Every structure is written in C-alpha cells, then in structure tokens.
C-alpha cells in the first residue's frame, strides 16, 4: 500500500542550513510525523524533531508544513496530492536550534512574566463554588496545548524580533483573558495589565492566531477582543472624558500595574499602552502621530507595514488560503461600517490628557 513520496526538510542549525530532499515511503492513514519517524529510522537518524504524544494533545511537534504552521502529528498525508512535494521547515518566529527544533524559550519567559492566579484569601480549599457556565469561558482558553503556533504566526513578532520584548503574544493574551474571566480570581487589573505590560495594543486582530490554533480556541474573538474592549472602555469613555474636561479632574481609572520595564522616570500615564492606530482603521496621519507620541514603548514604534511577502513575492499562506482576495478585515467579517462609537476598539491615549 505504501508509495514513495518526495519530502523536502530543512536541515541545519543557527549557522545556516538548507532544504534537503528525501524520498520516503508513505502508507495509507499516516501523518507527517509518521513519515519523519520513518526518516529517522532510515535515512536521517539524527534528524532533530520534537514530539511527545503523537495525538495532538501536547503541542510539541509544531513546524511549518508547506509553509503553514501545523502540528506534524495532525497533518494527514491524505491532505496532499499524491505527487505533491511536502516541505517541512522549523517555526520561523523562533531561533533554530537544529533541523526542525527551535528555541521556544521566549514563550516560557513570557509565561513567567504573566501574573499568576490570585486565589481568594478567605475561601478555604474545598469551598470553591463556581457555576459551569462561568467556568466555561476560561476553560476554553485552558484547552491551550502550548504548541505556540499562534505565537509563530503572529505578525507582530514573526520577522519582527524587535517587538518581542514588549509583546507577549496571543498565547499569553488568552492566559490573561482566562484569568480575567476566572470567577474567583481576585486581581481586577488583568485587562489593564495586558494593555500596559503585555503589548495587547500591538495586536491588530488579523486572526491568524485563531486560524492556526489546533484546539480551535477563538483566540481573537473570545480572548483578545474582549480584553481590548474593556481596556478601551475604561480608558476612553466619552462621558468620563467630557466630565474630566468640564471639571478638570478625574483621570480615567489608571492601571496600577508596576512595570519592571517602566521602572525609572517613566510615568504611569506614558506606560498606558496604545493601539496601532491603523488597527482602528484610522487613516488620519495626525491621529496616528498623536497615538504614537502618547505611548512610551521604550523603542521605535513600528510603522504600519504591508503583509510580508515571501521570496516569490506572494503573500504568506494564511492569506492565500483565505476564501477571498486581499487581506481579511482586521475587524472581523461580521462587522459593518460605520462602527457605532462604543464599539470602536482603539484608544486615543492623548484624549483624556486635554
């Protein structure tokens, strides 16, 4: 039943490498990871590749298969044409260690920086009471298997090493969302923290993370957008703004987060994160400049960029596989314009200063 199939696998390390061709036997019902294991047992015993459960539960075998971030254990060979060459490359957003193995320590560092669950002090173990409907929202995010495909595909850090220090990425936005929605978590500043310290504002909601999530977590719709919305509600509520204009007081509630990075002369008002102005759909250059000057990123603010193209001048596959021409709306497809003001998901950081 087996047939010989053409594989191109990236071999190398941080000093460089290239795609190597292999002809390898493929049997009915196999997945890409089966084929990689066969290669290890035959032609390439030292081919480096992470895997554990081979069942889509541990998130170890993340790689890019024909350019698309996938779990190798969940990519069936039957999804390719019989004569199609399958190319396998390491995750691009993280430094290569060897072959298909990358250094994903970025994610563990971000995990360590995300404030942990804050249990209620007065509820003893065994007395926690929560309703199913209330835990389900957080449970969706706790399905995360930490494959880091969402991190890998995120435009903010893919090919933008310089954004990594200030940006935690979708995996940790849903961690923040999960804690924010946890019925018994006692911290009340999860959203503000995400905005101020995790770089939530960088996200321009292209939903690529949601698209690659093997657990089908609605990262953007259920995690990031609700986190952005309330952060914006608090910061930019027109009535509060008007009140502060009239009575010359009442800063909108500010984040009480203390930042390791913002230590020093930076004032709280400058650490409050902004949003890419283009994420809100604004094309007013003045507003853009204003938004950027109001935010202290401790580095040059990246300018809006067109989607990256590969060496053939084509868009990356996430866009290619989309069901229409051009990039998807950053607002999501279910949104019509003009937006009602209360749904605008961008902030004018300068607004409440006036």
């Amino acid at each position, binding site marked *: 039943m087996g047939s010989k199939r053409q594989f191109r696998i990236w071999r190398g*390390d941080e000093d460089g490498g290239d795609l190597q061709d292999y002809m390898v036997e493929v049997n*009915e*019902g*196999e*997945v890409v990871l*089966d084929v990689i294991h066969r290669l*290890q*047992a035959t032609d390439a*015993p*030292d*081919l*480096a*590749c*992470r*895997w*554990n*459960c*081979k*069942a*889509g*539960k*541990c*998130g*170890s075998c993340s790689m890019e298969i024909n350019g698309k971030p996938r779990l190798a*254990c*969940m990519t*069936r060979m039957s999804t390719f044409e019989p004569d199609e060459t399958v190319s396998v490359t390491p995750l691009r957003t993280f430094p290569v*260690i*060897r*072959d298909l*193995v990358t*250094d*994903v320590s970025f994610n*563990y560092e971000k995990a*360590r920086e*995300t*404030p*942990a*669950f804050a*249990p209620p002090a007065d509820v003893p*173990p*065994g007395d*926690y*009471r*929560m*309703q*199913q409907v209330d*835990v389900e929202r*957080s*449970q969706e995010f*706790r399905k*995360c*298997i*930490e494959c880091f495909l969402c991190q890998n595909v995120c435009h903010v850090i893919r090919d933008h090493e310089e954004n990594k220090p200030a940006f935690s990425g979708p995996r940790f936005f849903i961690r923040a969302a999960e*804690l924010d929605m*946890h019925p018994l*978590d006692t911290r009340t500043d999860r959203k503000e923290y995400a905005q101020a310290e995790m770089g939530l504002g960088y996200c321009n909601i292209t939903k690529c993370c949601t698209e690659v999530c*093997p*657990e*089908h977590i609605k990262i953007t719709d259920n995690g990031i957008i609700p986190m952005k919305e309330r952060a914006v509600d608090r910061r930019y509520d027109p009535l509060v703004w008007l009140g502060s204009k009239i009575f010359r007081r009442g800063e909108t509630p500010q984040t009480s987060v203390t930042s390791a990075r913002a230590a020093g002369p930076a004032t709280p008002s400058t650490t409050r994160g902004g949003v890419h102005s283009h994420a809100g759909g604004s094309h007013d250059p003045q507003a853009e400049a204003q938004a950027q000057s109001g935010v202290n990123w401790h580095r040059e603010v990246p300018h809006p960029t067109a989607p990256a193209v590969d060496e053939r001048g084509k868009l990356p596959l996430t866009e290619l596989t989309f069901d229409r021409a051009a990039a998807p709306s950053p607002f999501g497809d279910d949104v019509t314009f003009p937006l009602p003001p209360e749904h605008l998901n961008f902030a004018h950081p300068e607004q409440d200063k006036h």
Partner: protein
Amino acid sequence: MTTTTRIERHHYDVVVIGAGGAGLRAAIEARLAGKKTAIISKSLFGKAHTVMAEGGAAAAMGNVNPRDNWQVHFRDTMRGGKFLNNFRMAELHAKESPQRIWELETYGALFDRTKTGKISQRNFGGHEYPRLAHVGDRTGLELIRTLQQKIVSLQQEDKREFGSYDARIRVFAETTVTELLLDGDRVAGAFGYYRESGEFVLFEAPAVVLATGGVGRSYKVTSNSWEYTGDGHALALRAGANLINMEFLQFHPTGMVWPPSVKGILVTESVRGDGGVLRNSEGKRFMFDYVPDVFRKQYAETEEEADRWYTDPDNNRRPPELLPRDEVARAINSEVKAGRGTPAGGVFLDIASRKSADEIRRRLPSMYHQFKELADVDITKEPMEVGPTCHYVMGGVEVEPDSGAAVGHVRGLFAAGEVSGGMHGSNRLGGNSLSDLLVFGKRAGGHAASYADSLPERPKVAVQAVEAAVETALAPLQRDTGESPYTLQQDLQAVMGDLVGIIRREGELADALVRLAELRERVAKVSAAGGRRYNPGWHLALDLRNMLVVSECTAKAALERRESRGGHTREDHPAMDPRWRQVNLVCSLEGDAVQLARKPLPKMRPELIALFDRAELAKYLTDEELAEFDALAEEAGN
C-alpha cells in the same frame, strides 16, 4: 581530567527528575518546604505524558453521590488491584486525594462543575460511585497546566523576594538524566545532558525524587510517548533500589488500531461510561460473555438492564463494558483470536448509534476532534476500531508508603507516580493515577526535603563516577561499527510485544529472556550517527539500556509468577492463586544481572480488612488468612 572540569555544575537541595504531575507536585512541596529545588524535564516544560490522561482524577469527595467516602474508594482500589496493592498506599491515596484536588483549585484549576457549583464527578470503570473530577476529556492537561502555573507563581514570589525567578525552583527543560551518583549508599547527585546542546550537566544534591513515568516505549503498540523508556526504573535499580510488581503492565483495552496515524492512541473509558458499547465483527455486544465470577454480582446480565444503568445507577447493575481494564482487554483479545475481530485486529467501539451527535461532541469534545483531525474518523457517525494498547506499568520502585523513600541499598532516593510501585497492585483503576501523582508527589517532595534537612553533611560526588558517566554517554557517538538504535528499539519492541505482551506463556517468556540477553550484547555496541546537538538517535541509544534492563525485569517476573492476576495473564496458569497474592516479586541489580526475589506482602490492618465482605475476601485470600479474618470478626463481635 579536563572533561569533568568543564561540566556545568549545579547545587540543589532536592532534584526532581521528571516534570509530569508527580514531579511537579513533588517540586512544589520541596520548594514550599524552603528547599532549593530543580525540576529536570526530558521534554519541554508542560509537555509531560500526564497531558494524555483524559478521564479524570479519582477522589472520594462525594459531590455527586454523597455516599462516597475514602473507605469506598479504598475498597475499589484494592479490588481493582486484586488485593496485591500495598494497602497503606491505597489507604493514604483514598484519604488524601480529595484535599489534593481541592488544593488544585487554589492554584487556579477549573474543573467541570455540578449544579450546586461543586466539582463534578463522573463514573469510571471500577469505581462504585461517580468519583472522577474532570475537565471535559482533557483532565491531564488541566492538571499539568495548573501545576506548571503554580510553579510559575512560586517563581514570581521568589523573584519579588530574591530578584530571580530561579532563586529557589528552576526547571531544566529538555534535559535527560543518565546516571545517579552515589556517595556510599547515599544519593549525591544526578548526571545528565542537555538535549539542545549535548553538553553534560551535573546536579549535586542529597535528595533525588524520581518521577519519570513508565516504560511503554518497549512495546510495539503503545499510547506512551518517546520519553517512556523506564529511565527512573533503571536509575533506581542501578543506584541499589528495588523494583516490585514489574510483571504487571496495563494494556488499555481501547486503543485505536486503525488508521495507523492514531494507532495506540487511547479512546478514553468515558466513551464506555457515557454509553459506548463494544461489538465484534458479527455485531454482537460481546462483553456479557466475559463477566468473571468475582464481578458477577455487580454487573448487568442483559442489555436492557445495562442500558437502564446509565440513567438509574442505583437500581440497576453496571454494563459489563465498565469492567476493570484488564478484563475488557482480555475479552477483546479473545474475540480477535476467535476470528471475530476487525480487519485491523480490533473490535468496534460504538457510541455513534447510541448517542446523538450533539451529545457526543459535548461530552467527548477532545475525542471527537482528535479522531476527526488525526484520522478523518467521525465518531458521531461510525464506530471506532479499538484493541489493547500498552498504557501503564503498575510495577516500579519499591517505596516506603508514607514517604516515598526507595527501599533497598540506597538513601536519599524517593519515587512518586508511575515510576513507583505498589499503590495499584496488579492493576490500576482509571482515574487513580492522576490522584496518585498528587498524593504521592506531595509526600515524596516533602519527605525528600526533610531528608535533605536531616543530613549533617552533604554527600560528595566522586570524580571517577562523573568520568565514567561521561564515557558511557559518549560511547555510542564514538562507535561507528554498531547497529542503529532505531533497529534495536524495533527488535526490543517486537520481543516484548510478541512474547511478553498481554497474554503470556512460559515457553515464550523463557524465549524472551534469551532474546533480551542477545539484545543486551547488541545494545552494548550500539552506535549513533551525527553529533551531540539535539541528536535523537544518540538520545535513543542512551535510553535503550534503560528499556532493556526494565524489560528484563518484566520478563523475569512474568515468568516467575505462575498465575493470572490484573495486568499479568498467563495462558498456562489462567486462574488467580491466593498464595501468589501474598507475594511481591522484587527485582534488584547485582552487577549487571537482574536478580529476582520473593517478598511477602505487608498485612492489611484489621480495621481496613474489616471494610470488606467475607464473601468477597474469599475470592482473594488463602484459607489461613480467612480463618484469621474470621477470628478478627469474632473478636469484634464480642
């Protein structure tokens, strides 16, 4: 020597080898006791095999059925293990698992809830009442993530206090320990390598907790990941500790057998708990033919009664699909051998015709997605093809029940979780392993910490031992004449799968020992191509000797135990023998050779044995033991 001086060295109070549930729980406990703790993880942090556990964690909280309590849980555990369990471990486990589960909630875990907002509990094979705390069918993931996040929160505390996340608890990801180092009979440290760089690393520590999981990679069809090469078992043996019950391996009855992309992957027991039934190729629901006498009273005799149980468990007996795992595995094996199996050598597990598609998707979301995506099988539309797959090893390091300290010629060595033996006897109930990890992980971590405190001075690592460890580790890379580690692993898997598998015979076991001896020669000469950086061939070559010595223990013990019990089935000795119940088979290492000895089982305390009916005990105990029980009962009556 230059090689040893360049080795990275770390000093810790407690080194935990293994970053699954037991390891993380042990590390948390050691750190809470104020010890400087290292966690050594063979994979990335959070990828441990614990994530595979689906059903839940058994704990007699009584949230769903208030009649549940630790005594009932204890009884179920002993029954499941066919009374070969270390009773004290089963007792501690039943008593402490509710607290361990509740504790997880304070770490942030979100279990599924009952209507009153408590932790929901589900039915599972072998448990009298609904007892398994669960999160859909990804309970293991919840557990590992919760513990992982608790460790992060402790690191955040340390960062605030000492300025460094790693001040008191550090995770060494993708690091494999190849040797334990001793000072006389005391543990002095652990030696290993970083997978990423291939560089060696030495941990000097007076206390080591083994939490390395199981041995399943020695089998052809297994649900276990590449990590499960019996490292902890082998390290313990080489350090002078004993292994017990190594003949008992659990073959999960329902692993996928087709298509190959999912071969070995488990179909959780909850599929059967939620109404799934087993049918042979003739469409017959065959489990009714396989109810053993000891279980006859608890299990339904007709399909009608079995089907009523799902909605009215108090007035009906359980469906035979929910018999303990070994019974189900044996039944499937018999059906297949009788020619009533599927083409791929399994039977059908059908839930599609019994529940609505919506309900299946809601109750078994991961199952549904897993098979849809991995194999393009829609479990709401078609039955699954399942058969026995190597899943869990009951045997492991012989430990003191209360402390988890290894028994044998070594001090400072502790074990918890799958790598330890005794708790589950001859067979583990589903759901008991997640609670086992928590209960004994905490105990081992705590006792390792107090052991480290009790030492007047630190044991010293001998330079020669480190040099020898370096040499052993580099040997496969320096040879180019030997065989490929992959070939050797396949050959080992063939020997174990074919000759020491689910149904065993004397001749085959003897044959297996001969072949294992041959393999030992070949493994000693294995060579790995390539360099030291992230070289899976080299890693496998180093794991092979662990797999081999553990396989020898299993084969030897399986040959010796001339009865069938739990996870050990002898075709030539098909019955359970009460005299064998009094015996543990203990493996130890003398030089390179595996030694086997018989050791009497500890005797259950009177108040514990009094929890059982005489009629039930009669199935397991010898006449003398029963006479003793009667005397006790009489005394109590007076």
